[in-house]
């Protein structure tokens, strides 16, 4: 390892370990405050709620989504559903007509493409005390709305994010995402304790309607309006909480190209939004978001990309050595050191142990998240090593692409992503 690489490695890994330790300390401080309710609850009062469902080419999934909303355990007269078709190219609009007779459901059309436009159309038509949205590829647990609403007992709480769970994982990639989402629950809950949540996810985050009156409606925000609104709330000192037992089941990309496109969009959005809200960075008056959340996001992006270059440099060194060897004595495919394992030659450099510590901290976070969501019964599983290995390889690639796009201002849009998926039948 050259000295510059070594230096950067230690800085980046120190910050990464710091972030993980910070979350873990937060966990130990607050773990008794994490509430998971298994049974149905009854609220003292049921405020009125509107759920906006924006759709773009969702003919196959939208009815499931609406059904799950209709099955929410919540008084029918207090729950309004607004479905907004955002100029779909498929038969979404026709499919939606089946719902027209239901008095709980309002069907609208928004011709201006863009999820933020669809959401704002819904907001214009919202008169209830609370409003949320649900992506048309997601479904909700019947208890989730009540559980979320219960968090608004605190008058300062202005929005509550749910726990997003991967729905019916089928292949390795989806299992890996399940593990990733479980880690995200942990991160999100810890950020909630710290008051530093940076995204109110599209699937089923619920807001007080007054939020939009105070800080304005959704913006285009680099196709990640759910990040932008959260940052805008943070900037205005509006509290966001997380309800770990409000489960939302979401479809997850089942192939690498799909996952790649989704992640490029998310991370691109994060970088651009973080840049737009750069004034939050390191400003104590904005709280955790600027001191911890945004910097740690930047650290994880830098760290992962560094890991890629680091791995490449090691690979390059190895290949270069092989080339020299083959020039000297000819090419042998199988090395005999493959068979004669000798512990002496295992690396015992500090960076190896630091990497191990970092991985252990990540796994502890993941297990905490999993325990938070499912209880102990699904505590460990083979998907954790799969997640660690797969994401170590894939994440640097989409991160690099997202960073490249962010620098060159190449937007990756929500509708483009879906058009691509349909055209390529992936």
């Amino acid at each position: 390892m050259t000295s510059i690489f070594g230096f950067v490695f230690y800085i980046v890994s120190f910050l990464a370990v710091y972030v993980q330790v910070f979350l873990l300390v937060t966990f130990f401080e607050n773990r008794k405050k994490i509430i998971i309710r298994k049974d149905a609850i009854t609220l003292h009062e049921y405020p009125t709620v509107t759920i906006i469902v924006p759709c773009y080419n969702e003919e196959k999934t939208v009815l499931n989504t609406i059904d799950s909303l209709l099955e929410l355990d919540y008084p029918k007269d207090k729950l309004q559903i607004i479905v907004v078709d955002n100029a779909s190219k498929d038969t979404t609009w026709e499919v939606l007509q089946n719902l027209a007779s239901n008095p709980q459901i309002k069907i609208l059309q928004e011709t201006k493409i863009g999820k933020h436009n669809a959401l704002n159309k819904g907001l214009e038509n919202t008169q209830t005390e609370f409003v949320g949205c649900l992506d048309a590829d997601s479904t909700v647990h019947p208890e989730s709305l009540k559980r979320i609403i219960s968090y608004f007992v605190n008058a300062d709480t202005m929005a509550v994010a749910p726990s997003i769970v991967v729905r019916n994982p089928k292949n390795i990639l989806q299992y890996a995402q399940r593990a990733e989402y479980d880690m995200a629950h942990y991160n999100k809950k810890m950020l909630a304790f710290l008051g530093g949540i940076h995204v109110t996810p599209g699937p089923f985050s619920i807001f007080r309607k007054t939020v939009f009156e105070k800080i304005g409606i959704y913006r285009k925000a680099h196709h990640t309006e759910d990040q932008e609104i959260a940052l805008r709330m943070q900037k205005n000192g509006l509290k966001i909480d997380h309800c770990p037992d409000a489960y939302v089941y979401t479809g997850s990309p089942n192939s690498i190209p799909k996952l790649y496109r989704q992640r490029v969009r998310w991370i691109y959005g994060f970088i651009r939004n973080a840049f737009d809200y750069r004034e939050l960075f390191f400003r104590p008056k904005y709280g955790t978001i600027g001191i911890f959340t945004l910097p740690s996001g930047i650290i994880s992006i830098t760290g992962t990309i560094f890991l890629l270059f680091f791995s490449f440099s090691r690979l390059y060194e190895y290949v270069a050595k092989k080339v020299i060897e083959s020039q000297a004595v000819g090419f042998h495919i199988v090395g005999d050191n493959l068979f004669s394992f000798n512990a002496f030659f295992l690396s015992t450099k500090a960076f190896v142990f630091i990497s191990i510590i970092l991985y252990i901290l990540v796994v502890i976070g993941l297990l905490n998240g999993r325990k938070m969501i499912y209880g102990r019964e699904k505590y460990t599983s083979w998907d954790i090593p799969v997640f660690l290995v797969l994401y170590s390889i894939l994440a640097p690639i989409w991160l690099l692409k997202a960073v490249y796009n962010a620098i060159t201002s190449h937007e990756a849009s929500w509708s483009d992503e879906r058009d691509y998926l349909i055209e390529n039948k992936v």
Partner: protein
Amino acid sequence: METDIQKNLKKNDWFKYIVVFIITLGLFATAGGLSNFFTNKKIQTMRDIQDKLSTDILSSETQFALLSELSCSQNDGQENLSDELSDMAQKIEYSESNFKTNETATELKRYYTILEIKDYLLMKKINERCGKKRSSILYFYTTAENCTECTKQGFVLTELRKKYPDLRVYSFDYNLELSALHALLKIYKIEDTKLPALIVDEKKITGFNSIEDIEKLLPKSMNTKAIPKTKVTQ
């Protein structure tokens, strides 16, 4: 208006940021400590091998002195040393590239170099007195600069060692601060501009030399062993 987030941050969090910093430092110190611990274990392993080598060479010398007037046909005790020397060479090479900051690695290398020279001298004596013809190669390389030719030469020598089990290969780092080595460099007139350099049975060749080049200088009668289709590390 101050939100409770901000109040919270002002009240507690700076303290927490510092505590977490200290914990993180602790974890890094632990990583450093573990690294040190295992590196020291490796160094201990190398010391053990060297001690054994040293005893073996001393034993050979003593045996040779005792039996000098008797028949040369007796086992001179040197047969088994080749493997130990090459095992040690591998570990020295590894420690050079892996514990760069470690003085101990250099110290071990000095000791190893002396052992090599001693073994070389003993072998020469046995050859002279008993009329044996055991071939040897002295290999001089540099670590002061990036010497690709040296790396290549190293691979060639590993291969040769494998092909001729009786062949003794002694490798010397030109840049090592050691008076015995300086004497050796002087005797064979090794210059740092002409590295890698080889002394194959007293004949000097410089620059990169392939297996075939070196074989030409070795006696035809040398026992060979078929090279298995595997790679050998230096």
